[in-house]
């Protein structure tokens, strides 16, 4: 019996030893928010997360910018075999469950959540203003940048400017009126302009500077048709261009020749992709080159012919304009033989060349490219200044001068000076000049996702889609409906307080 007792004790004790139950979870390799923010470096890490999430397939890598591009009159659907969701965005036939919207809507808010997390982390460090505010300013810039896109696309939107630790606090909020959203965007940008440095380390353009904030203030005020303020901000950028390191690159093509340097002088805010690598969730996955590339062509121009300009875009663009040469490809190597667009396999039209021609290190269809995409570049600031100045004071010499600066650069045909486009002829009326600026924007910034916003802010829809000179006629265009996209159906189902849906959906 004693022997048994001993045995029993041994067995039981060995069991008890094993049974030191510790149910506390101690995850290794997982980042917990509570312990995330200890130094300013951690705040920077959180802000960088927001940039990385903008440079994704869902936003600047494909979905969001393609939707913007198709919505305008400069890019039409090429391959009609492409998913219906894209055709419906292009054809003003979308419903409230459009998958392009379903893809980019959440990601913009995840970018906003990342910047809110960074701000909340920065504030938790309790550092003096001069040590932390430049980072708060950077995060607030990213937030403003994101909401600026959202408010232009959707109008009234849910607006959140704090880090969410309990989602139930926002589950039944209503949409914030767009006027109010714009005021908050302006407040963020003003803060950014106050606290951001003149230049970021190494002068990189994938992080904002004081000049970036001012340029976006100019753009926001232009959108709000507050032309005096738009002019003031644009002028501020132009006057301080040396301080910020801004200027036009001499050769227009160099803007679209990847890899663009991180401190390219014309870039005011750039979305930085690195060739051939990608992360989870579509991070750093740039698919714009194949979306605009030519079906069946040799690498790197080969692609899927999804977003292809109408023939009118090509035909109406003066062939003496170097920017047309840079922006479009009307021929391509197919099986090693240069072929005109009339024998392209899928869509027999000239294709967009800004992205597919020089994607840098990329796969053979130009995917995972090396591009740094300009979300804002100096030429646009010049054109904002021209338009705003003209709205305030008419077509002054100053206003004309800004346009001419842009045109002068365009006359540098890969190092060879040409005479086209000529300087703006004097004597234009104010409306004529403003039209000229808008046309200049259409061509200078062609396929750079600006045109739709111009059509919207200038209310040009009926003219450009239904007018006699329409580049891309859409009889279906309805100004009461189509200036806004629908809030995703799912969002309204999860939170009915987002009702009413935008009109017409």
């Amino acid at each position, binding site marked *: 019996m004693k022997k048994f007792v001993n045995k029993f004790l041994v067995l039981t004790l060995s069991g008890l030893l094993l049974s030191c139950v510790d*149910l506390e*979870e101690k*995850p290794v390799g997982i980042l917990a*928010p509570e312990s995330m923010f200890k130094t300013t470096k951690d705040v920077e890490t959180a802000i960088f997360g927001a940039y990385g999430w903008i440079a994704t397939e869902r936003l600047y890598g494909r979905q969001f910018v393609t939707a913007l591009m198709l919505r305008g009159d400069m890019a039409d659907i090429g391959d009609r075999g492409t998913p219906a969701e894209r055709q419906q965005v292009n054809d003003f036939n979308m*419903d409230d469950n459009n998958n392009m919207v379903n893809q980019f809507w959440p990601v913009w808010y995840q970018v906003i959540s990342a910047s809110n997390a960074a701000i909340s982390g920065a504030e938790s460090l309790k550092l003096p203003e001069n040590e932390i505010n430049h980072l708060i300013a950077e995060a607030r810039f990213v937030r403003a940048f994101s909401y600026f896109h959202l408010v232009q696309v959707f109008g009234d939107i849910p607006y959140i400017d704090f880090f969410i630790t309990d989602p139930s606090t926002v589950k039944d909020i209503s949409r914030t009126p767009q006027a109010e959203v714009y005021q908050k965007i302006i407040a963020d940008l003003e803060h950014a302009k106050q606290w951001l440095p003149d230049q970021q380390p190494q002068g990189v353009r994938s992080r904002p500077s004081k000049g970036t904030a001012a340029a976006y203030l100019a753009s926001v005020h232009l959108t709000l048709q507050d032309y005096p303020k738009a002019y003031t901000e644009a002028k501020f950028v132009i006057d301080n261009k040396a301080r910020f390191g801004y200027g036009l690159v001499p050769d227009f093509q160099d803007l679209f020749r990847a890899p663009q340097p991180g401190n390219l002088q014309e870039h005011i805010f750039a979305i930085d992709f690195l060739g051939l690598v990608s992360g989870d969730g579509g991070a750093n996955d740039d698919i714009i080159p194949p979306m605009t590339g030519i079906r069946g062509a040799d690498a790197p121009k080969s692609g899927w012919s999804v977003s292809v300009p109408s023939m009118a875009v090509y035909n109406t663009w003066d062939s003496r304009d170097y920017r047309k040469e840079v922006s479009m490809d009307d021929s391509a190597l197919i099986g090693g033989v240069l072929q005109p667009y009339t024998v392209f396999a899928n869509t027999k039209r000239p294709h967009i060349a800004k992205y597919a021609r020089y994607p840098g290190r990329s796969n053979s269809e130009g995917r995972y490219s090396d591009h740094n995409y300009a979300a804002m570049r100096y030429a646009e600031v010049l054109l904002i200044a021209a338009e705003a100045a003209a709205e305030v004071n008419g077509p002054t010499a100053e206003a004309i001068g800004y346009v001419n600066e842009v045109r002068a650069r365009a006359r540098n045909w890969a190092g060879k000076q040409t005479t086209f486009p000529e300087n703006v002829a004097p004597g234009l009326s104010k409306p004529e000049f403003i039209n000229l600026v808008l046309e200049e924007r259409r061509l200078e910034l062609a396929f750079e996702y600006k045109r739709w916003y111009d059509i919207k802010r200038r209310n040009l829809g009926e003219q450009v889609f239904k007018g006699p000179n329409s580049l891309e006629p859409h009889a279906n265009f309805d100004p009461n409906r189509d200036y806004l996209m629908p809030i995703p159906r799912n969002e309204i189902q999860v939170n009915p307080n987002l009702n009413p849906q935008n009109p017409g959906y």
Partner: protein
Amino acid sequence: MNRILSFKLKWLLLLPFFLFLVVGAFAQGILVSGKVTGNGGEALPGVTIVLKGSSVGTTSDVAGNYSLNLPNANGTLVFSYIGYVSQEVVINNRTTLNVSLVMDAKAMEEVVVVGYGTVKKSDVTGAVSSVSSEELSAYPAQGTVQALQGRAAGVQIQANNGQPGASFKVRIRGGTSINASSDPIYVVDGFVGGALPPPEDIESLEVLKDASATAIYGSRGANGVIMITTKRGKAGKPRININSSVSSQNEINRLDLLNADQFRAYIKEARPAFDLGSANANTDWQDLIFRRGAIQNHQLSFSGGSENVNYYISGNYYDQKGVILNSGFKRFSVTSNIDIKASEKLKVGLNLFAQRASQQQAYTQEGSGGLTPGVISAAFKFEPDQPITDPNTGRFTVARLNDPQDNPYAVATQLENESLNDRIQGNFYGEYDILKELKFRTTIGATTNSGRTGYFAPTTLNVGRTVGGEATVSGAKSTLLLNENYLTYTRDFGTSSNFSVMGGYSFQTSSSENWGGTGQSFISNAVSYWNLGGASVWQSPSSGLTEWQLGSFYGRANLSLLDRYLFTATIRRDGSSNFSKNHKWATFPSGAFAWKMSSEPFMQGISAITQWKWRASYGLTGNQAITPYQTLARFSNVYTIIDGLAVNAVRPTVVANNDLTWETTAQLDIGTDISLLDNRLNFILDYYRSVTRDLLFSVQLPQYSGYPNQLQNIGSVENKGFEFTLNSRNLVGEFQWSSDINISRNRNKVLELPGGNELQYSAAPGHLVGLGNTHVLREGYPVGTIFGWIYDGVYQEGDEFLAGGGFERMAGGEKFRDINGKRDAQGNLTGEPDGVLNSDDRTIIGNPHPKFIWGFNNDFSYKGFDLNIFFQGSQGNDILSYTLMELNLLSGINNATTDALKRWTPTNTNTDIPKAASGRTRRVSTRWVMDGSYARLKNVALGYNLLDSITNSLKMSKLRVYISAQNIWTITKYKGYDPEVNYMSEGATNSNRNLGLDYGSYPNAKSYTVGINIGF
């Protein structure tokens, strides 16, 4: 960790020792032989025959024959057999002893394995189904789960994919969850979470279904428990068994597709401007990717033992060549079970199991298209006018009409996707009889699983060509340790009353590691995935570690009064690390009562009734199927570039839930077991109702919160139903016929959702873009309810075309029904049409749950012949076919089935197939929802046992040859290629919600098998 290591080392050191022990010595003497028969003269196989007071013994063979070497002709032989009265026969110098055993009518002493013990079958108070080893090894199966299909009432088993080596979904009494896994737990020789042995090594399998039986497994019991007992040695001379079979396989069905001319005519109609070029092949892609498959299945086992040491050693080899090119599955395993009676009071034993499984996968059931389509979906949709290779470039052809996807032959032959899994498991037990009535048992088990997968897309494929070849290697290793310690006390009061109580505790821990890397752009395709370092482009590597612990206390009491009234009570308290900090521990009780009505005096004298028992039970069980760390908030890395360089970057991705707890299922079971006519007829009937509350659900958050969803405990779901099992020995005697029928009916219903609001979700291939949500969770309806529009055929000229964004408004266009949209003054929907089609017009259009499932097994035998016919089926379930949706959308982007020949044209208007038109939106509608009922001849087998005279002359105890066929006949109205399909049905999140979906599955196979069973 050191402790763990030392345990493992100990086993390894002990192994040769045990193997050595089993080589027993067998003395020479006189030979006694004879035949053991039952009351009716029928042969009794498996009767244990032991020389009294010694370790010498044997068992009778299939024909009831035995022979035994004895030291001398004195002494007494003891004949014992479950369900029969043991008999002692004095040898008295005889060399032939024929014995007739008498059935023990009082109690069929068959025992049933339950958690932490066994009970006599007649004393079972819970709902338990037993499946025999013969049923499990009736035909070659890639694993035990597949072999279980159709065998037990209340158990539904579906292949997640027909791919060799693919997983199965097992539901016992329905899915008790929405978002958490509802797979049962497996207990192998007492090891919770142990590896499943191959079917041939299983002695018995019990399915524990009601709370009374499963609550002893507490937080893991809600989905039922499958108890597996592996074969063990019996005293006697060594026995050798060889089971061997080979099978030939074909895909179960194909689809009728357009040929090249029909296809080109259709595309011309859909997209007149499209230049199809001069392709002039007529390729049958299904022909190219399918091949004749084959299975080899072999088992060799040795078993035997002396009075003190018994052994069972078995090796299994299963090799399946899939019916699609370059696909297959192999497994090789060894099992060694040793039982040692160390002293009168102490028993110890060790089960060892080692298995290598390797799988070569065909790419199927793709979740998203990309440029590499799945082999099956592409075999259907790829353009038939294209040849395998482009004559100009010599490259594999790619699709012209949509994204330039590779053709299916290219994907099947070029893409490499292989995995290898090694499993090593040891489970030690020690059992000590402290007192006559008090037993202590401890078990220590460890199982490790090491896996590696390799993937290579060479430059001959589009996806590889664009990046110069892409290779990924990933590895994973997991370790599970379990220690159980419990005491069992039994007390017999006489007068047919007894009492037993069991109590103990256990500790279980798990650790899983994973790591992987991807490279692109290689010098040559020949390196496959074995030279990542040679890649000129490196993608981010990955690694991860997850661990969990579970500590438990448990107990059970059984009381039997007058052999009539049986009471069982169990309780378990579990603490799990997986749960949130506010809810680490929970308790799961159960109780059951059974009444053996037939033992009551008033039932005596009714000779037809052998036994009639009533059972009732109620209890709580849990489901802790939540992955570690899921309750914690976290930031995740974002691959971010600043100034052309990757930098550290994070963003918030998961929001915490400090109150997350397990799902709790309360289950009521009422059943009756009736045996009639000396057990010739056995009925088991059960009614059950279970309600699971605190459902774990990944609740969709508003996307503007920045988080897609949050795991919450929401609402409740109900499963209720009937199970009916009938075993009947229809004919006995020379010509025997027995039948087993099981029918199960389960009704699944969502009882409660947060705020009563419905939740919608999407379960569809990513490349069928634009579908939006496809399913709805709504109170009063089952989980997995299909949600969409009602398809009303096609519009004709002159019809009024309903307005609506994305809806067609033309003759020949798809016509959907306007059923809702009108709003009242408050803006609420009224359920009346508004003349506009939009998302408000969707409704419930399908229920993927069967009304009932069934299995019907028949065994016939006559002389040496035996015949098995096994049907299995499902009735009343709907299937949503994405396969047909993709093919027959008719928007001119891929091939279609021959239904496309009936499409609307101005001259063919009397049809419900729309015209060919580009830009058509894909919609989940009644057009793609079909009845998926089927009845299938799962197995038919004809065997012949060679006569004793022949086997004896060959020194064999058994020689059986058989031919069989599987899945050769199916009755169904389903228009896809197979009603037994699934899609996106793997993993905790999907397995309960995604039912009855069809997309690009690897087809099931028809098999023809020949085999042989030999015993020595």
